[in-house]
């Protein structure tokens, strides 16, 4: 068969495929669209044939373009629905965290060891805390958690809308930090380690300073409610970042590029879950933590949060039926 007669014989089919593809691309499928997969595969066969017989460039290019367009349409991934989100929260996420339990302890240590050290320096050597917070930091801590009732955070939030403003701010800031912790992991884990240790030092210094110079109860009643979501969310984001970074550092038997892609696949549920946890923390922090309730109630809610997380991560999504 000569190139010319090949085009003549098959040309009408290609025009028809082109028409169907255009109609689907424009979201107005025309009659005959159910034939699209078959016509697509025929065009694939034509392309393979044309290439094997080395027909002229323009025939091959025309078919190549048709096949790419068809592939793009037929292999479009289906949109994830609510069902998938529920399944992810009930099964996928706790499983992903359990599977990386070593990283959980590593990231927890990277946060809590500096945190504890800075807390301890409130009693041992306050200069460490002073150096970390700086004058502005100390001043803002005093303005939020100072001894006087008027300076307490519940008082500062009395203006209409301030809760919503802080909610928006926490979403933007804290979830953004989670994403940065994750992204920093690809630079051989360095970014993740930096952010976790930095947050441990800074939050520890803030907590220590409150004990040194402010009213600890106003601080702890404020943070109790959202502490579990936010701190665990940050640790899980750290796990995602470390997983990614370990793909770079320790590719195992894969080539490095492939190892990074595999590690990213494993870290994806972790960072999604971490983002959701931190977003929920922002809701709690915005609308609950600053409300004026007795300290016992606030501590109880905080402890309940930690217990719920423990149960969630240890018990959810176990058993063969869950998947």
């Amino acid at each position: 068969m000569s190139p010319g007669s090949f085009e003549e014989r098959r040309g009408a089919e290609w025009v028809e495929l082109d028409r169907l593809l255009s109609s689907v691309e424009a979201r107005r499928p025309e009659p005959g669209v159910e034939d699209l997969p078959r016509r697509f595969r025929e065009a694939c066969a034509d392309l393979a044939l044309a290439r094997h017989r080395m027909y002229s460039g323009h025939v091959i290019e025309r078919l190549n373009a048709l096949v790419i367009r068809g592939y793009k349409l037929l292999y479009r991934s289906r949109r994830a629905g609510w069902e998938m989100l529920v399944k992810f929260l009930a099964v996928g996420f706790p499983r992903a965290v359990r599977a990386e339990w070593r990283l959980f302890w590593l990231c927890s240590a990277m946060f809590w060891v500096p945190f504890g050290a800075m807390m301890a320096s409130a009693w041992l050597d306050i200069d460490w805390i002073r150096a970390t917070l700086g004058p502005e930091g100390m001043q803002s801590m005093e303005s939020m958690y100072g001894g006087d009732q008027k300076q307490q955070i519940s008082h500062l939030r009395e203006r209409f809308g301030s809760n919503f403003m802080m909610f928006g701010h926490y979403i933007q800031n804290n979830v953004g930090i989670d994403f940065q912790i994750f992204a920093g992991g690809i630079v051989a884990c360095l970014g993740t380690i930096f952010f976790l240790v930095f947050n441990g030092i800074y939050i520890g210094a803030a907590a220590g300073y409150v004990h040194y110079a402010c009213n600890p109860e106003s601080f702890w009643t404020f943070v109790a409610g959202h502490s579990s979501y936010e701190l665990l969310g940050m640790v899980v984001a750290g796990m995602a970042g470390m997983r990614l970074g370990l793909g770079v550092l320790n590719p195992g038997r894969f080539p490095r590029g492939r190892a990074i892609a595999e590690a990213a696949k494993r870290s994806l549920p972790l960072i999604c879950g971490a983002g959701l946890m931190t977003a929920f923390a922002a809701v709690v922090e915005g609308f609950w933590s600053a409300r004026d309730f007795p300290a016992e109630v606030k501590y109880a809610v905080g402890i309940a949060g930690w217990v719920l997380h423990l149960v969630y991560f240890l018990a959810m999504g176990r058993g063969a039926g869950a998947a």
Partner: protein
Amino acid sequence: MEEVAGRIDTLQAIELAEGVEVRLRIAGPLLRGMALGIDVAIQLAGLMVAGFVLGLAGIAMGSLVTAGMMSLVWFFTWWWYPVFFEAGRWGATPGKKMLGLRVVQTSGAPVTFGQSMLRNFLRFADGLPCFGGLIVGIPTMGFGLATCLATRRFQRLGDLAAGTVVIYDKLQPEPSVPAPPPMASARPAAALRPEEVRAVTAFRERAGLWSEDRRAEIADHAHELTGATGQPGVSRMMAIAHWLQEKR
């Protein structure tokens, strides 16, 4: 996937599940940088419009509520704008769409939502080191550019992690300007593979477009086939192309 040592163009041959090979042209850092510039401009413009509208709404709703909304708008514009556009029908942010680019998996299939999240969240790491501070300040995209240039398919870190590439959405037909017909025709010394036959005939079909020096430069890459460099190599290459096309 076809791996030919020492390919000098950016065409990627990708084999589909249907057993056929398609060719995707990978986009380089310059065009992608321009697309990023357009996107950032759109994001900033969107934020300014949102700031203006929310500023007006603040008179009615209370300025603190709108300040909270502004934070949310900022968050979604910054982190999610590229994710939603790339995972959507376009497969490209508006900036890429304007320049005719599209994001696909390395297999050529459209990207999934998860991949889009990965590649766009990692843009933070690609943006390092930042101007005016290591991690805070204006991103220079230094890491992204470096990995783009170091990888065969112009992938930045986010692309490597997500397994994606940025391609030209529509392949421009290669301009065909044949050089004057060659005088001689010569049999290649060894049997050529289809890929090589295609390259040699493409050389002839497009040679009219290039200067003498450029022809020699390109033909030098095939000196093992022609056994000569410079002008003799070009003539020899044309002769082989002639033989392949006419005399077989």
